[in-house]
């Protein structure tokens, strides 16, 4: 076990600990809660909030499956049903899948890199509040029967002013803009933190695979999200002030929206999936008791996935009648992306093959992930073909495919990852028995629900229908799917119940209950707000597995409880040599106020075009509170303050 890989007591340690506690303490009560800018608090809230939205979106799905149990059923009419599937898709994509991965990253990345916080802590808190408030606004709108009802993609002209009067789509468009702001914020945090705040010695070729995955994801967010913000903003302008970006009658172009949306929308699924690849790598190495096979191949595959994912968007538009040659290009790209993913699957299988497996719940989720995701990936290979896609596009076949890739590919690893990091998050172990039961129910329920949908799609059942004809023959398979959904829901309840119970009653976990390799396991469970009293120094790729007892730590970082600032070490990009010390700002209420002002402004703009004019005032005023009173200039590191990084011991490349 490497839980003892902590430094021996150093002189002045207790005083320093108290100073750090004070510098990061947000104070008591609700105000204190809103002031916290620690990545630990923000990350935990991100994950918890995203799971609340997951539960809501899951309830919407359960309602839809109930409605589809019988042909020509009228339990739920089209008006509500269309809102339900729009809320389900929008929430799962914008309020669950992306934020939960980013929240996990905000929590884990600084710990894995051995630093004390993300690069811009106040911006980070602002991102969380923007996301949470936007989600609350959307679900409030739904509760008031102004939930969007034009699908999570909201194509004009259906979503335009003529065919969707009222405010429903306006709420959708503003929500998308807000969640993308939050996503961009988190992406910037992760890129900056990974590039400049790595522990001394953690050169680029020693970054944990989870952090690599989040780095690639963050770059994808930076390039993809502006496209959808453009689409949602143009749509909002068409609706609110009568522009005609997407109105063909006035020289606009309905297809332009689809290009913008899918230029974001396809990378989006990889933005959800790539972090999951990082989770899988973390779990595989911990439970196979060896480093993941083929680190360079893994990293290059992640980067390749990120690049190629931007060349696929047209495969969502094969039915729109685009030129044949162009379509072939996108077929080739859609097939090509299977390669880097295949390489990673091969490497994980090789890791399991050569490892000594500990059969805990997280590993079960990883095995379930491979068995499920590969099937989804292969139906994706089928759909890369234009002729086949024209048959299965917009049918339940695609519903099956996308759930195999997103649930199998991202949610299974996520649930496994939550089990894996649960001791770090809460300080207690989750129950293994309930964990395995939950996994079995989720896995069986999932396949029972979604496998029959392949057949339904080929038989002619389109997506997004609130009912189907009695003579269509669709009823038996829909009932099978309904039964599966019940099992799946039960599995999710067992999972949730286990975590809620274990958070209070679970066995107390040490810092490193699994004997895992990455640096977060050297911090206490749960970690203090500052993460590490003495940030670690890294001597190899495999983190804790290569640290010698009592190995070097970073000392000499100062903290000033009076101004609420504390220092982190900045290292250089390639080989993480110590370069500078920088002050990070402490708790502040102003990020919350800015988020409230921004969300308020965009919601008000649904009702009046004057909102951005007057809303700018509170946004600007609240921003004035962000800077720390006396921004100290970064201090160049003096020799001897931080231990030199020793050369890594010679070792075989895995």
């Amino acid at each position, binding site marked *: 076990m490497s839980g003892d890989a902590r430094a021996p007591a150093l002189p002045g340690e207790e005083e320093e600990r108290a100073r750090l506690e004070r510098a990061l303490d947000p104070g008591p009560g609700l105000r204190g809660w809103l002031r916290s800018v620690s990545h630990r608090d923000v990350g935990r809230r991100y994950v918890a909030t995203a799971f609340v939205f997951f539960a809501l979106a899951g309830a919407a799905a359960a309602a839809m499956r109930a409605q589809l149990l019988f042909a020509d059923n009228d339990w739920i009419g089209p008006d509500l049903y269309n809102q339900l599937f729009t809320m389900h898709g929008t929430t799962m994509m914008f309020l669950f899948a992306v934020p939960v991965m980013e929240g996990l990253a905000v929590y884990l990345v600084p710990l894995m890199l051995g630093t004390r916080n993300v690069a811009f802590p106040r911006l980070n808190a602002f991102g969380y509040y923007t996301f949470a408030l936007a989600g609350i606004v959307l679900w409030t709108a739904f509760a008031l029967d102004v939930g969007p009802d034009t699908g999570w993609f909201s194509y004009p002209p259906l979503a335009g002013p003529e065919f969707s009067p009222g405010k429903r789509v306006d709420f959708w468009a503003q929500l998308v803009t807000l969640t993308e702001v939050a996503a961009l914020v988190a992406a910037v945090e992760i890129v900056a933190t990974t590039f400049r705040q790595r522990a001394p010695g953690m050169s680029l070729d020693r970054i944990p695979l989870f952090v690599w995955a989040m780095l690639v994801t963050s770059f994808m967010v930076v390039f993809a999200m502006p496209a959808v913000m453009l689409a949602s903003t143009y749509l909002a302008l068409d609706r609110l002030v009568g522009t005609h970006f997407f109105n063909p009658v006035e020289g606009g172009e309905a297809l332009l929206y689809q290009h913008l949306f899918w230029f974001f929308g396809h990378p989006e699924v990889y933005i959800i999936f790539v972090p999951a690849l990082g989770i899988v790598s973390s779990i595989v190495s911990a439970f196979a008791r060896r480093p993941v096979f083929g680190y360079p191949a893994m990293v290059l595959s992640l980067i390749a996935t990120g690049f190629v994912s931007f060349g696929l968007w047209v495969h969502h538009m094969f039915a729109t009648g685009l030129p044949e040659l162009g379509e072939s290009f996108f077929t080739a790209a859609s097939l090509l992306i299977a*390669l880097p993913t295949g390489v990673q699957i091969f490497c994980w299988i090789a890791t399991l093959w050569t490892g000594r497996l500990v059969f805990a719940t997280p590993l079960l989720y990883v095995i379930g992930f491979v068995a499920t995701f590969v099937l989804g990936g292969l139906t994706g290979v089928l759909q*890369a*073909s234009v002729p086949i896609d024209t048959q299965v596009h917009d049918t339940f076949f695609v519903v099956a495919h996308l759930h195999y890739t997103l649930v199998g590919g991202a949610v299974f690893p996520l649930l496994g990852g939550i089990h894996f990091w649960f001791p770090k998050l809460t300080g207690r172990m989750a129950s293994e028995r309930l964990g395995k039961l939950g996994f079995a129910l989720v896995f069986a329920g999932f396949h029972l629900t979604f496998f029959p949908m392949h057949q339904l799609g080929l038989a002619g059942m389109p997506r997004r229908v609130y009912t189907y004809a009695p003579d269509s023959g669709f009823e038996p398979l829909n009932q099978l799917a309904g039964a599966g959904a019940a099992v799946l829901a039960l599995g999710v309840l067992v999972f949730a119940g286990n975590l809620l119970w274990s958070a209070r009653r679970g066995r107390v976990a040490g810092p490193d209950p699994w004997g895992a390799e990455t640096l977060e396991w050297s911090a206490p469970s749960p970690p203090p707000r500052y993460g590490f009293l003495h940030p670690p120094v890294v001597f190899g790729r495999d983190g804790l597995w290569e640290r010698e007892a009592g190995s070097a730590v970073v000392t000499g970082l100062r903290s000033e409880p009076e101004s609420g600032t504390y220092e982190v070490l900045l290292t250089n990009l390639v080989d993480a040599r110590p370069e500078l010390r920088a002050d990070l700002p402490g708790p502040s209420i102003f990020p919350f106020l800015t988020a409230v002002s921004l969300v308020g402004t965009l919601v008000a703009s649904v009702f009046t075009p004057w909102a951005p004019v007057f809303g700018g005032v509170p946004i600007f005023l609240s921003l004035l509170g962000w800077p720390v009173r006396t921004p100290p200039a970064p201090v160049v590191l003096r020799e001897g303050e931080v231990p030199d990084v020793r050369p890594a011991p010679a070792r075989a490349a895995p």
Partner: protein
Amino acid sequence: MKRAARAALALALAGCGRPAALDPAGPQAARIADLWWLSFAVVAAVYAAVLVALALAVARGRRARRESAGDGPPAPRPPDPARTRRIALVIGAASAASAAVLLVLLVASVRTGRAIARAEREHPLVVEVTGRQWWWSVRYADGRASEWFETANEIHLPVGRSIRLALSAGDVIHGFWVPALHGKRDLIPGRANELFLRVERPGTYVGRCAEFCGHQHAKMQILVVAEAPEAFEAWRARQRGPAREPRNEAERRGREVFLSSSCPLCHAIRGTSAGGQAGPDLTHLASRARIAGNWLPNAPGHLAGWVLDSQAVKPGNRMPPNLLPGPDVQALLAYLRSLE
């Protein structure tokens, strides 16, 4: 109980019968189905191989764990270099094989796509299909303008002849999809799309709107009736004519009701003064198999229910309820039922 179980089993088997997209009635759907089966065989083999590799890896890893002593997680172990090289070779080979398989699929897909795109271009019969919320307008506009006619939700096609469907949208984006005949194609406002196909096997084929188009996307179906050329010509000749004149008092009264109420604002009946364009053309309503976006059988009860309160059948559709006195309803029904 037993009977219910047996019925359930029969239904399940029916649900697993050959799905429409893989039961082609024309060369386009047949080519796609061929490509499907080829690709399906390839990916099924790949999936099986991955599962076997995963199972073997898990079995090996379990065994290795049992052989290592101790209760807690075994100490992490650095990999053995010679073994690592061997495995790297296997992974390299598997990746190369994947690339080769993908290349085969790409070539097969592009060839099929080209074949479909090049076919049926010679002198096709043109049928204009317009998607509307939530029904299909179908227009046969070949020959002299006086012979053009319009119908709704039902396309008749001669078997063995090249067909060009000219696809457009009247309001929002719709998707034309008859899986037994061809893949789907979107109907997009401001764009002219087309689909070339041929039907080889006479029969009726159900199609459904594939692109989400609002409230009643679910109940926007279309029926393709493929028949022998002579039968098709006979049908076309009948459709070209104006509506049949009322033959009795009830039908005459029904026509009056139709023309004096709000019906003609939306519906056309050729041969009368009714010329509305917002709803389906009713000139030969009684010749159609189904009503309401091909959702309900064209039977007197359904038709009456539809005319009086279509919102109960298809909530949100564009047709308002009609408050007509009983005798007027009976007369109107008699007239509409006579429009063969």
